[in-house]
């Protein structure tokens, strides 16, 4: 049994079901990538895993425990971290305060984790007193990831972390994500930049219209001609 499992996820935003029984699982120390066309329901699936969507059916398990009924704040306490696709920083709060909010559920000393995050993203250290809303897109993305890391998550879910970020920074970002995975975290990434992401991935899912279309190792998906034709642009 995988570390984080979502089975038969079905539900939407009150209207028609956006997710139609999709299943996603992530392992510790591994990178799992979800790709798919715009509007496939990738972000919706992430929200479902974090308890921010009313599911009509389906289950979410973390480390074998059924957490389907838990509220998002309870999942944060269980060691889940999530970087949403949009609006993923507190704009009116400083960088440091954003990071502190990431550690909101922790009661112990957070200064070590803070230094770790600044070590990971040195650019943030100089900007620590600046409101996050005044940062550049790439820096904001770093704050968002740093905020999620502050909780020392066991699972880290990232929704398009490389969106709006230059190729160089994006490359660096993935390097960092690999580092984080090596530290024992289960990583689940949604990526628009499918080729780059699948190259790193231990496992990949192709989601179409709320259903799993293809599943396999990153290399297998990259090698699958059908996947390449429809989703990787040849």
């Amino acid at each position, binding site marked *: 049994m995988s570390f984080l499992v979502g089975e038969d996820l079905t539900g939407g935003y009150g209207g028609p079901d956006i997710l139609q029984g999709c299943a996603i699982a992530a392992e510790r120390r591994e990178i799992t990538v979800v790709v798919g066309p715009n509007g496939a329901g990738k972000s919706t699936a992430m929200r479902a895993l974090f308890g921010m969507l009313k599911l009509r059916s389906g289950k979410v398990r973390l480390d074998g425990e059924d957490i389907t009924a838990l509220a998002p*704040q309870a*999942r944060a306490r269980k060691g889940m971290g999530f970087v*949403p696709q949009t609006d993923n920083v507190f704009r009116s*709060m400083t960088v440091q305060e954003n990071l502190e909010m990431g550690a909101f559920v922790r009661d112990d000393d957070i200064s070590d984790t803070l230094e770790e995050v600044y070590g990971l993203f040195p650019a943030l250290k100089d900007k620590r007193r600046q409101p996050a809303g005044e940062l550049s897109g790439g820096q904001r993305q770093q704050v968002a990831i740093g905020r999620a890391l502050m909780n020392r998550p066991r699972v880290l879910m990232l929704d398009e972390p490389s969106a709006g970020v230059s190729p160089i920074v994006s490359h660096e970002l993935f390097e960092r994500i690999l580092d984080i995975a090596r530290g024992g975290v289960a990583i689940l990434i949604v990526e628009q930049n499918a080729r780059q992401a699948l190259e790193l991935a231990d496992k990949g899912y192709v989601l179409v219209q709320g259903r799993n279309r293809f599943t396999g190792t990153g290399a297998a998906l990259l090698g699958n001609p059908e996947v390449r034709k429809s989703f990787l642009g040849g």
Partner: protein
Amino acid sequence: MEDVVNAVVLVTNFLVVPATAYGCQLALGALGVTLVYGVLRFSNFAQGETMSFGAMVTILFTWLLQSWGVGLGPLPTALLALPVGMGVTAGLCLLTDRWVFRFYRRTKAQPVIFLVVSVGLMFVMNGFIRFVIGPADRVFTDGTRFLLTVREFKAFTGLSEGLAIKTTQTLSLVVAVVLVVLLFWFLEKTRTGKSMRAYSDNEDLALLSGVSPEKVVAVTWLIVGALAAVAGTLYGLDKSYKPFTFLSLLLPIFAAAIVGGLGNPLGAIVGGFVVAFSEVFLTYPYRKFLAYLGPEGWRPDGLVQFLSTDYKFAISFFILVVVLLVKPTGVFSGKSS
């Protein structure tokens, strides 16, 4: 030269001092509106009545203390009763949240439904208050009336214009400053305060950071209730307490909150002073002031008043209109949607 000093004293006495006291009261009221807006995302029409309720509880308790012969000497007894008023009002806010607003929060009702509900609540509270204390005017100030009297000032300076400072005016300023400092310390430095700001900034992100929405909402209501009780009591001490006045205070309070940017606490404070100073300065007859500054023995013909005091609250409205037309998010950029 002495004329100029007299003119300055005149303006200080009739404009600056009263406007400062009024500004403090409005700022505290507007803080309540802006906090509720930031966290619960609706304009609370019941804010005026919440202030009225707090003042009423304080007055009732003041009477009780007075009947026991307990007092604070030169300070108004109401100051001793104020913590009770704050506590009871905070409790009332929690109760109304539980009985009224929570349901709509759970069902994710549209903001305008919250608005209608708060109007309903406003009238229930208005009726209840008049039921308990009656519609009449209540003066409950005791202790020393003036910190500085006109006579003392004139004897001290030898000027022909006097300056008086009422105890209640000083009290408004001191209490407001203390509370605002406390509030900002709470919002900036404490964990709960930061979680409140985070929730107000980005609700979803706060949730997935582990912030409990019900706790944030409860803390917000506690603060709003306590601040409203203080604002209402200070207003009542400074002028007099009459249940009907709080209905018309709603407009300047909203104007103050919107000028500063709904959801922005600092903006609400600045907005409170902008509205208070505009109201006082634009309705003051400048005849005597100009007479001091003009040539010897000259006096302007009319009152030299920009607007009659009858239209005092029209000024809040005009400020509001200008802000809505020019910068709807307010001077300090609150939330626009």
